[in-house]
Each structure stands twice: as structure tokens, then as C-alpha cells.
């Protein structure tokens, strides 16, 4: 092995490799050895991810906040004079992700054992799931942009498989196709960015490009244009993967997969990859690009939050909330709050995962009710829920903790990370002109909207009376919390949603340990008023917002929102973005493809056809000429000869006497001529 940076530790490297390869091993075993419905597969995958988690924790503590990155590489193949290396690059960012992924995946695995128990393709599910984790873990540790891209795509591919897991459902396969293709748009941009960097710097090695002060990206006196354009490309890749506007529409549709998969996609794998990418190549962005990132993030956060306000599908609300929260992270990246973005990524992973797992339980129970009473309802529709608080107490409590964290109330992890972003956004905008302050204000507004839709969700689902009674008053709703396999992972996650995991001081985000690991930032000092005013103001505003939701949906005495208004429809139809894509862009591409096919059939092949026909025509003309001109002349000549022959033939009577007469006559004539003339 060749070492690039000074510090390597074989043990850590081996552990890190083991972390990555354990799920892969589980994938292989499940894929090749385990029968289709065997329950062993679930335990194999879970065991693998558990070991992965433990090992990653060891790696984490060995690497976190140390002065040196760990970087090893080995030659993969040579092309031309360039040797392409394969290697690991462990720094604070990657070990954080390396820990986070199995930490979130582990509860999901355990939960899935119960959740997928009845499925006919049980083993297949865990095969995919292990592969998904493997791809994500590998993506996180790779030092090489080409390989990172490879695993980036494999993450997308795994999500494709999982979203379309129930492939007999049309909606599911539509959704996974959409997810893959929309991600592919971003992937292509990412690939172009990588290739541009390679073309200019002749290396795929991210350590050489981005790490440390000597990295190419930080070197002085270099034309940075060749860094900025790839930077924009990377941004596009992250936008697709992290479901940001305008490439966000795949995420709500991706709900068609099993709910446990959604939990994983929304928390630590898939969508986190985009934010991770931004963190990995952060030096590539200059101030302008960062502003673009902030704007996109802020807009997405706001847009998704407004859409979430009116959706009725439980999972769809959560999906839009994910988009919105990812927008927050992007915004944080954009305003330079690098560490806050990653902090929020970590906290969000836990509470969003928990929310989805709860949703899974709820939907599961609703499905039961639907089948039992043979109702024609959508089990995911929150309008049919209600009153589940007493029936499912564990779910209710864990879900509430997650909801509070999502809203960002004190004592939760969400409070710490979200306020960090808000504060730094305000600081960033300060002194930059009023236009820039739209971003922090937008973010603030978004967090209020978040409070409202989360409150709406909670009230509709857990409070009040079951709306099923409106269908049939005889129904006695029954629902249960589910087995321990459901409850334990949820409780584990709920514990992770509280403040102690991240900071011992529940009110000041600045003291979270996570910040120590990242680029020292001046924002960390409590130097100005924002650090006090913003959290207080936000929380003070959130309380009445929640009350408003309570009044609207439980007491039903506030009627602020007309169900038929323009704004309502706009939000309900998700800003018409998806319909726009379907009606315009997809149509256009199909039109274009039909056009080219028409062109191919009629113009290009038509041209060939015309050429061929010209050939045939020429041939026919030649044939005519041959028959009537060239052959004709011959016919005339032979005809003349024949006619002559026929004429002379008449003389040949075969009568000797006739010949004699002729002879005599000739002699006589000659004699007469000779004598008299």
C-alpha cells in the first residue's frame, strides 16, 4: 500500500474496511445462499449491520477530532500514464457518516424483521437492504471521486430496487423509474464535474484536491474557474440526490416502497449522500456558488413546507418535511454553517427515521382495520385516522418526541441543530443588504410552517376521535403498538432524539461536541445578540402556531384556511411542479424521440430508400435501352439479312429446267448486249 498522507493506522483501516464489507457479505450470503422466504436472512443482515455499527463506533472514536486524516490507497488500474488509485479517506466528516449510517440502519433492520415478516420476498428485501447500506457506507469512505460516483450510483440503484420492491404495483415501478431517472440527471452533472476536475488536475484523488491547505483547491494563485464549474456540477448532483428544487419530485413518489425503506432513504442513506457530497467537496465552492446553494436550500425548504401543509397522505407529509429539512441543510451549507448542516443531518436522521417507523406502525394498523371492516379507504390518509393516542401509547410517545424534535422545541436534538442554522443564517445576511435577509427570514418562516404541519399531523392522527366512525358508527377501532421488534428500535431512536446525545447543555447549540470536529468557525462564539434572540423568538412564535393548529383541527373553531382557495389548491397540488414535468418535459422528450424516429424512418432511411429507388430506376432505364436500343439495332440488321435471304430464296426452286431457262436467258441477254451495244 502506498501512503499519501502521513498518518495511517492499519487497525483502523482494517476496521473501516470491515464496516463497509460486513453488509456486503450479508448481501452476498442472502443473495446466493438463503432461500426466498427464509427468516434467517433478516437476522444475517441485522447482525452484519450491528457489527458494522460497533466497529464503526470504534473507528469513530479513534479518528474523530484527531489532527490527521487517515488516507490509504492502492493502485486500481493504470490508464495511459495515469494510475487510478482506490483508497480510503477517513476524516471527521466520513467517520461521522460512517457511524450515523449503521446507527440509523440498525433500528430499521430490526424493525424490518417484524414489518416484512409476511412478505413473500422476505430474503430479497434484506438482500437489497444490505446492499443499500453497503453502497452508502462505501460512498462515505471512498477517497476517489470516480469510486465515490460509482457508489453514489449504486446507492441510487439500491433505492431503485427498494422503491420498486413491490414491483407488481404500477405506482411503485413508476416511482422507482422516476427516482432513478431524476437522480440520473444529477448523476450526470456530478460525473461531468468529476471529469472536468480530472481533465484539469489529472487526478480523481479527493485528498489531493480538497484536503488540507496544500490541496489543489486551496492552492494560491491558481485559476479557480476550473474549480467553480465542477463545483456547480457537484451541486446539481447533490440537488438531485438530496431532493432539492427543481429535482425534488422523486422523493414523495418514493413512498411507494416499504415504509421501513422510506425511513432509511429519508434518514441516513440516499438523501444524506447529497449533503455529504457538498461537505466532501466544500472547498470547490466559491462565494457565489454558496449563495446559490443557500437560495436553493431556502426556497426548497419553504416550498416543501407549504406543500406539506395540505397533504393528506401520512408518508407524503413526512416526505415533504424531509425535503424541507434537507433544504435547511443546504441553506446551512450555503451560508457557511458547514458544521451546523452536518449537525442537522445527524439529528434529522434520527427523528425522521423514527417518524417513518411510527408511520409504518400506524399504517400497518390502519391496513388491518381496513381489511377487518372492509372499508374503502386509503390506509395512509390521515383524514381517516384520529384518536390513536390511547390505543397506541408507545407509538404516540415516541412519535411525539420525534415531532417535537422536528419542530425544534427545546430539550430535543432538533432544537440544537435548527437554531444553529437559523442563527448563522441571520449572521450571514447581516451587512449584505436587504435582499440577502430574505434567506434567514424565509428559514424562520419555514420553521413556523413546520411547526404547523407537524402539529396538524399529530392532532389528526393521535388526537380527537377516530374518523372511521363517520363511515360506520359501529366500528370500534382497535390498534396496537406492535411487538417488541417494533417498539425497541423506536425507543432507541426516540432516545437519540433528545439533547443529551449531542450536547449536555440543552439550550446552547454552540456546545455540541459535534462542532469541534469541523472547520473552526467564528460563528461558534456567542458574540452577538442573535444567539439569544433567535431561539427565543422562534420558540415563542412556535407556541401560538401549534395552538392555531390545535384550534383548527381539534376544536375546529378556527377557520383560517379555505379548503377551496387558490393557495390551498396550489399547495395541495404540490405547486404543480410534478404535473409540469409530466406534461411538458416528459412530453417534450417523448416528442423529440418520436421526431427523431420519424426522421430516421423517413428522412435518413427515406434518403437511402430514394437512393435505392434511383438505382432501381436507372436499372430499369438501362434495361429498356438494352432491350429497345442496343438489341433493336441488332434486330434491324438481322432483319435486313433475313429479308434478303428470303428474297433470294425464292429463286432456288430446285427445278433444273428453270435454272436452264435462266441460264439461257442470261446468255442470250449477254450475247445481245455484246453484239448490239
Amino acid at each position, binding site marked *: 500500500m502506498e501512503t499519501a498522507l502521513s498518518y495511517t493506522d492499519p487497525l483502523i483501516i482494517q476496521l473501516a474496511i470491515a464496516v463497509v464489507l460486513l453488509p456486503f457479505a450479508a448481501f452476498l450470503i442472502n443473495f446466493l445462499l438463503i432461500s426466498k422466504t427464509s427468516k434467517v436472512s433478516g437476522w444475517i443482515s441485522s447482525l452484519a449491520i450491528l457489527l458494522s455499527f460497533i466497529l464503526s463506533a470504534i473507528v469513530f472514536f479513534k479518528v474523530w477530532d484527531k489532527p490527521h486524516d487517515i488516507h490509504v490507497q492502492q493502485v486500481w488500474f493504470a490508464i495511459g500514464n495515469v494510475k487510478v488509485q482506490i483508497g480510503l479517506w477517513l476524516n471527521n466528516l466520513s467517520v461521522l457518516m460512517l457511524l450515523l449510517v449503521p446507527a440509523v440502519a440498525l433500528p430499521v433492520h430490526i424493525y424490518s424483521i417484524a414489518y416484512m415478516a409476511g412478505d413473500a420476498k422476505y430474503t430479497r428485501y434484506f438482500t437489497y437492504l444490505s446492499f443499500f447500506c453497503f453502497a452508502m457506507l462505501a460512498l462515505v469512505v471512498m477517497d476517489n471521486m470516480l469510486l465515490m460516483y460509482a457508489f453514489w450510483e449504486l446507492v441510487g440503484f439500491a433505492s431503485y430496487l427498494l422503491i420498486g420492491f413491490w414491483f407488481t404495483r404500477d405506482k411503485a415501478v413508476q416511482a422507482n423509474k422516476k427516482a432513478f431517472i431524476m437522480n440520473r440527471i444529477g448523476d450526470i452533472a456530478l460525473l461531468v464535474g468529476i471529469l472536468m476536475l480530472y481533465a484539469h488536475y489529472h487526478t480523481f484523488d479527493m485528498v489531493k484536491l480538497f484536503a488540507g491547505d496544500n490541496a489543489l483547491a486551496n492552492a494560491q494563485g491558481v485559476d479557480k474557474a476550473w474549480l467553480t464549474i465542477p463545483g456547480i456540477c457537484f451541486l446539481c448532483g447533490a440537488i438531485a440526490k438530496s431532493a432539492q428544487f427543481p429535482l425534488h419530485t422523486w422523493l414523495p413518489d418514493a413512498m411507494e416502497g416499504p415504509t421501513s425503506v422510506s425511513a432509511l432513504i429519508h434518514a441516513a442513506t440516499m438523501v444524506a449522500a447529497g449533503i455529504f457530497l457538498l461537505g466532501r467537496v466544500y472547498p470547490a465552492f466559491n462565494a457565489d456558488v454558496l449563495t446559490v446553494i443557500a437560495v436553493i436550500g431556502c426556497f426548497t425548504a419553504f416550498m416543501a413546507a407549504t406543500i406539506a401543509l395540505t397533504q393528506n397522505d401520512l408518508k407524503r407529509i413526512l416526505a415533504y418535511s424531509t425535503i424541507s429539512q434537507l433544504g435547511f441543510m443546504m441553506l446551512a451549507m450555503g451560508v457557511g454553517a458547514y458544521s451546523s448542516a452536518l449537525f442537522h443531518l445527524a439529528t434529522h436522521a434520527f427523528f425522521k427515521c423514527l417518524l417513518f417507523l411510527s408511520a409504518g406502525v400506524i399504517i400497518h394498523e390502519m391496513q388491518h382495520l381496513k381489511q377487518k371492516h372492509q372499508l374503502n379507504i386509503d390506509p395512509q390518509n390521515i383524514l381517516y385516522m384520529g384518536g390513536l393516542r390511547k390505543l397506541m401509547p408507545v407509538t404516540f410517545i415516541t412519535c411525539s418526541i420525534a415531532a417535537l424534535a422536528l419542530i425544534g422545541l427545546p430539550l430535543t436534538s432538533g432544537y440544537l441543530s435548527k437554531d444553529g442554522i437559523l442563527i448563522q443564517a441571520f449572521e450571514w445576511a447581516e451587512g449584505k443588504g436587504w435582499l440577502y435577509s430574505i434567506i434567514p427570514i424565509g428559514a424562520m418562516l419555514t420553521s413556523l410552517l413546520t411547526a404547523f404541519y407537524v402539529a396538524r399531523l399529530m392532532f389528526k392522527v393521535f388526537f380527537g376521535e377516530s374518523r372511521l366512525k363517520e363511515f360506520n358508527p359501529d366500528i370500534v377501532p382497535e390498534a396496537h403498538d406492535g411487538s417488541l421488534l417494533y417498539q425497541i428500535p423506536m425507543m432507541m431512536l426516540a432516545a437519540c432524539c433528545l439533547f443529551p446525545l449531542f450536547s449536555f447543555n440543552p439550550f446552547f447549540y454552540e456546545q455540541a461536541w459535534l462542532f469541534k470536529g469541523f472547520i473552526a468557525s467564528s460563528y461558534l462564539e456567542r458574540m452577538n445578540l442573535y444567539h439569544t434572540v433567535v431561539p427565543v423568538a422562534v420558540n415563542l412564535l412556535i407556541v401560538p402556531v401549534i395552538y392555531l393548529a390545535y384550534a383548527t383541527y381539534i376544536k375546529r373553531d378556527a377557520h383560517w384556511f379555505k379548503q377551496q382557495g387558490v393557495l390551498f389548491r396550489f399547495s395541495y397540488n404540490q405547486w404543480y411542479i410534478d404535473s409540469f414535468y409530466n406534461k411538458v418535459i416528459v412530453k417534450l422528450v417523448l416528442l423529440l424521440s418520436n421526431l427523431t424516429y420519424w426522421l430516421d424512418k423517413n428522412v435518413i432511411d427515406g434518403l437511402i430508400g430514394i437512393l435505392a429507388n434511383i438505382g432501381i430506376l436507372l436499372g430499369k432505364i438501362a434495361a429498356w435501352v438494352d432491350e429497345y436500343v442496343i438489341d433493336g439495332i441488332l434486330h434491324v440488321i438481322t432483319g435486313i439479312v433475313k429479308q434478303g435471304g428470303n428474297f433470294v430464296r425464292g429463286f432456288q426452286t430446285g427445278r433444273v*429446267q428453270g435454272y436452264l*431457262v435462266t441460264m439461257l436467258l442470261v446468255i442470250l441477254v449477254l450475247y445481245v448486249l455484246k453484239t448490239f451495244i
Partner: protein
Amino acid sequence: MITLTDFLFISAGLFCTGIFIVLSKRNAIQILIGIELIINAAILNLVAFGKYDKLNNAGQSFALFAIVLAAAAVSVALAIILNVYRQYKTIDPNKVERLKG
């Protein structure tokens, strides 16, 4: 006195008669007779002109040769005619037309 001219006249008459017979008759034997007449006309001419060669009498000698040859020719011709008759049951030369194209 019979002059040379008289001989020539008779010879010419014989010749013409012979030609006429040859051209007009439909019977091979008659044609043969016609040919004989023509030959005799020629022989008569030979004898008639023989008076200019009293030393060698070449005219008469040639006449003798011609008579013999004519006789031979006639016998051959008659043999052919007999064979033709056997083949075609006719001796009309116009009807013997197997060679006609």
C-alpha cells in the same frame, strides 16, 4: 451443193429442238432424249467443221469420242433414272424434291 451453212442450220435446229425438249418435258427420259439431240447437234457441228482439217481429221475424231462419251453418259443417266424411279415411283424431275430447302 450442201454447204457448211446448211449443216449449221440443221445443227442449230437440232439444238433448238433439244433445248425445247429439255425445258418443256416432264419426263426424265424425254429430257434425256433432248440432251442427246443437243449433243448430236454439237457433234454435227464438229463433223461439219472437220472439212478445214483434212490432214488430221480432228473433227471426225472428236465426234467419235463425243458419240462414245454420250452413249456412256446416257447409260449412266438411264441407270440414275431407273434408281430415281425406284425411289420415287416417278421420273418427273420436278417431283423429285427431297433436297429442296
